[in-house]
C-alpha cells in the first residue's frame, strides 16, 4: 500500500510503514545520519536525523511513514538542532582530524561538512579515555567513540553470536569495550568490516592507516550526501 507524505511542502509517495529517512533519500532529500545504516535495524542513538514530523521533532530513522504525514527537514530551527547534535559529538570526544587515520573517511567529519559546521558551540571536553590495544588485529581509540552502537549490535562472533563490542558503565562514564578473546578470532574481513562500520576513527585495524592520499579518500571522491542519495536509488 502506498501513502502520501509531504517533505518541506512537497508531496511524495511512499510505501506504508517505510522508514522516513529512507523515503527521504529515495526522493532526493538528504537527512544526515551517523548511527543509522540502511538495511540494518534502527539504533536511534545519535539523533542526527532529527526532523519535524507533524510538528514534533523526531529522529527520522525511527519514524515509519504514514499517510498525510507532514515532514519538515530544512526548516531552520530543526536544521540547527541537527547541527548542534553534531557539534555536541565534536566537543564530547577528541576529534583531532589532522592526526586521525579515519580523516576523509569519517562519517562524523563528513556530516560536519554537510552541515557547514566550522566550530562547536559547546565547550571542548578533552576527555581522557585510554586506548585499548590488547587484541591482535584491532584497536580502539576510545576518545573518538560516539556510542552509536553499530559495532555492539552488528558485529557478533560468527560462531556463538556473542557480542564482541560492548559498552561499560552508563551516561557520561560510558566506555566502549572489546572482548579480546572473541576479537582475536575475528577473520580479517570481519576486522575490516568492523573498522569500516565504525562511523569515526575509534575501531581501527592494526597495521593499516593513512593508506589513501589526501584528495583520494572516500568522502573526497564522493560526499556522504551523494552516497546517501545515490546508493538509495540503486
Amino acid at each position, binding site marked *: 500500500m502506498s501513502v502520501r507524505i509531504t517533505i518541506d511542502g512537497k508531496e511524495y509517495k511512499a510505501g506504508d510503514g517505510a522508514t522516513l529517512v529512507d523515503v527521504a533519500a529515495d526522493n532526493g532529500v538528504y537527512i544526515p545520519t551517523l548511527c543509522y545504516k540502511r538495511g540494518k535495524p534502527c539504533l536511534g542513538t545519535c539523533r542526527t536525523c532529527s526532523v519535524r514530523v507533524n510538528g514534533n521533532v523526531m529522529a527520522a530513522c525511527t519514524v515509519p511513514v504514514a499517510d498525510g504525514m507532514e515532514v519538515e527537514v530544512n526548516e531552520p530551527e530543526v536544521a540547527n538542532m541537527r547541527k548542534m547534535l553534531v557539534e555536541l559529538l565534536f566537543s564530547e570526544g577528541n576529534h583531532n582530524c589532522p592526526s586521525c587515520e579515519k580523516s576523509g573517511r569519517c562519517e562524523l567529519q563528513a556530516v560536519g561538512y554537510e552541515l557547514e559546521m566550522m566550530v562547536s558551540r559547546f565547550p571542548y571536553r*578533552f576527555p581522557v579515555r585510554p586506548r585499548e590495544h590488547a587484541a591482535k588485529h584491532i584497536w580502539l581509540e576510545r576518545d573518538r567513540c560516539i556510542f552509536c552502537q553499530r559495532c555492539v549490535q552488528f558485529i557478533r562472533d560468527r560462531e556463538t553470536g556473542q557480542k564482541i563490542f560492548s559498552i561499560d558503565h552508563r551516561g557520561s562514564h560510558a566506555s566502549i569495550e572489546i572482548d579480546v578473546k572473541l576479537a582475536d578470532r575475528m577473520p580479517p574481513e570481519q576486522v575490516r568490516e568492523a573498522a569500516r562500520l565504525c562511523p569515526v576513527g575509534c575501531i581501527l585495524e592494526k597495521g593499516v592507516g593513512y593508506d589513501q592520499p589526501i584528495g583520494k579518500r572516500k568522502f573526497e571522491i564522493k560526499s556522504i550526501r551523494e552516497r546517501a542519495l545515490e546508493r538509495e536509488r540503486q
Partner: protein
Amino acid sequence: MNKSVKQKTASHELPATQLDPSVRAARDEKIQVAMIGLCGCWGCTLSFLDMDETLLRLLEKVNITRSSLTDVKRIPHRCAIGFVEGGIANDENIETLEHFRENCDILISVGACAVWGGVPAMRNVVPLEECFREAYLDVPTAEPGTEPLIPYHPDIPRITTKVYPCHEVVKMDYFIPGCPPDGAAIFKVLDDLVNGREVGLPKSINRYD
C-alpha cells in the same frame, strides 16, 4: 645603566620615518587587518599566502598592519579585522589575544588550533606535570650532570594548565577550521567580510584536517 635601558626598548617603540603621504592616505582608506600567531605552527599564515594571486585582489581592499609578515609587533591603530592563528597555551597568548580583542572590531579564529586547540591541545589529556617531566627532566637532550630545571621566571610566559580555543578566552566572531585551512577558505571568509556579505564556508572548501 644606559645600556640596560636601551635593551628594554622594544622594536615597535623605535622612531619611524614618515610614510609618503599619498601612500599613507591610500592605506588609511583600506580595511585594516591585524594578524597574529598564538600557539600554533604558522601554517595558517602560510596558507594565507597560498591564496596566490587572489591575495593581490584582497590587498587592493585591505591593509595588513600588525603581522609576522610586516614585522609590526603591536596593533598601531584600530583594525576592522583580526586574523588569529593558534590557540591559547600561555599567559602571553592570553595578553596578546586581549590586545587583539581590544583593538579589532572582528576577530577570526583561523585553523584548528585557534578553533579548538589543535595539535598543541593534545597535551590536554596529559597532566601538565607529565608534560614538564617529559620536556625538561626525562628529555634525552638533557645535559648529564647538570641540575634538572623547570623554567619558571617572571620574564617567561607561564604555561596554561591546558590549551584553550580562542573563543573560550575572548569572544571570537568567525571561525575557519582546517589544519591548515585551504587558502581558498581563508580568502572566502575575508572576501565576504571585506565586501559586507554574510560569511559562509561552503562544504567544498571546509575541512577539518
